[in-house]
């Protein structure tokens, strides 16, 4: 069993003419790698009618609807996060209730608002109510503002996690760019923050540092936009760990933090 906790799909209202090919490619590569479930999110229109990291309510609704339609098309392969923009509080709350009731299994926050902002509290209260994890986009050590997003770093996510100790947070793509050592130092003492291993980064020493800092029990396997690097990290972990520890990262930790029954053999 292998669960990718950080996947994405595209749809017809994005700027990408190749959206079908990319979705097909993810599923095809997933078969090759042995991915049982892709837990995915769709960030609105991916920039076509509102910015990827600041998606409009209408775009968010369409993206979430697309994911809700994909799940039953691939019931044995796809699960989803409901994506919300916390700047639109009422829409976010309504969208979370609607989509979780319809079968999505987590909440995705991108970079529309800093992670330590009070506007995220209503979202987290709903995560606690529905007992679903929150996957938060993170820039590993944001030293300056980056265009196109209000990126958060691990220190800010940890501030949110401390305010909501009963909610499980997933720090997105430790290999997704930036100083992962800064992030690992921040999350070390915050037990409700899990580290997702996705991202294109395959730095020598990164996986050892993840294991040393948060241990096997707080690591989640994922790929994000590069399944090749995800598979590489899995292969490297197989060299570092025994079967039981590897299984924890492959799927058991995910099964523990997502709602009961979210996955086939759960």
């Amino acid at each position: 069993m292998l669960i990718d906790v950080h996947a994405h799909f595209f749809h017809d209202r994005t700027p990408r003419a190749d959206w079908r090919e990319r979705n097909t490619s993810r599923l095809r590569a997933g078969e090759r790698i042995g991915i049982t479930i892709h837990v995915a999110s769709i960030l609105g229109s991916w920039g076509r009618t509102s910015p990827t990291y600041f998606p409009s309510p209408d775009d968010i609704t369409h993206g979430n609807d697309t994911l809700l339609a994909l799940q039953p098309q691939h019931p044995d392969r796809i699960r989803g996060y409901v994506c919300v923009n916390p700047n639109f509080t009422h829409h976010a709350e309504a969208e979370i209730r609607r989509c979780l009731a319809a079968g999505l299994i987590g909440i995705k926050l991108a970079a529309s608002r800093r992670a330590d902002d009070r506007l995220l509290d209503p979202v987290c209260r709903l995560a606690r109510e529905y007992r679903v994890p929150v996957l938060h986009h993170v820039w590993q050590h944001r030293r300056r503002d980056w265009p196109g997003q209000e990126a958060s770093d691990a220190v800010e996510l940890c501030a949110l996690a401390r305010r909501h100790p009963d909610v499980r947070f997933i720090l997105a793509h430790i290999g997704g760019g930036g100083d992962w050592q800064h992030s690992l130092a921040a999350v070390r003492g915050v037990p409700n923050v899990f580290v997702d291993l996705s991202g294109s980064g395959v730095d020598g020493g990164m996986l050892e540092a993840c294991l040393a800092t948060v241990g096997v029990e707080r690591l989640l396997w994922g790929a994000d936009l590069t399944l090749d690097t995800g598979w590489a990290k899995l292969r490297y972990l197989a060299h570092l760990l025994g079967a039981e520890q590897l299984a924890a990262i492959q799927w058991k930790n995910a099964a523990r933090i997502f709602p009961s029954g979210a996955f086939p053999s759960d």
Partner: protein
Amino acid sequence: MRIDVNAFLGAYPYRKVPGTSPEAVLAAMDRVGIDEAWVTHLPSLFWRAPAEGNDWLYATTAAYPRLRPVPAVHPGLAGWEEVLSVAATHGVPAVRCDPTFLGIHPAGEEMRVLVAACGTAGLPLMLAVRLEDGRQRHPNDVAPELPPAAVRALIRSDTDVRLVVTHADRGFIEEVHFGSTPDESARIWWDICWIWGPPEDHLETLVRTIGVQRFVFGTGMPLRIPESSVAKLDLLELTPEQRAAIESENVRAITTA
């Protein structure tokens, strides 16, 4: 047969990297099935006189025949021609120069003279676009990345030189390849370590649009885990001939052209 053209020995100055000794690199090669690796002495890339690391590199690789030395040369330092001459006598597969790390213009007069000398000597010249993701570099690690325009300028500056460019992504490769004549682009080889696989399928696209003959297997280890480059190939639908081309046959073309 799998040859890694892009590997290093020795410590990295900006963070702790495990497995940098020759023995550890050989163990990593065994782990992922790499038969031979072209290696550079990593610390000396950051020295004022990078060729001072070459003696250690020659001595070390002499003791480990699966490792082949790629010595560094600084064309702005007097005596660089001798460095090139010594490299040739050691039968190296390539020499390397990373101009932005040296603080010299990446397509300036010094580089053009080096390119001409490499062309005359029949020595392929290796250049890295980057060693780490620009978003994670140490605050004091501020050398610019190698620009695509420099590679275009260098390949145009000499009709004999062969370039091996490592750590380039799809956009970089396309810009140089389609910004060069067929004769020019046929003298450039790209290592695959920084090219994305599925679902974006950059490597698959490049193999289709540019041709399998332009790509060589490289990992960037130990700064990067070598499993990544193997996984990229395992996710490609390649014929055995195409896979062999990337993993070893194209390398022979570089070294025997």
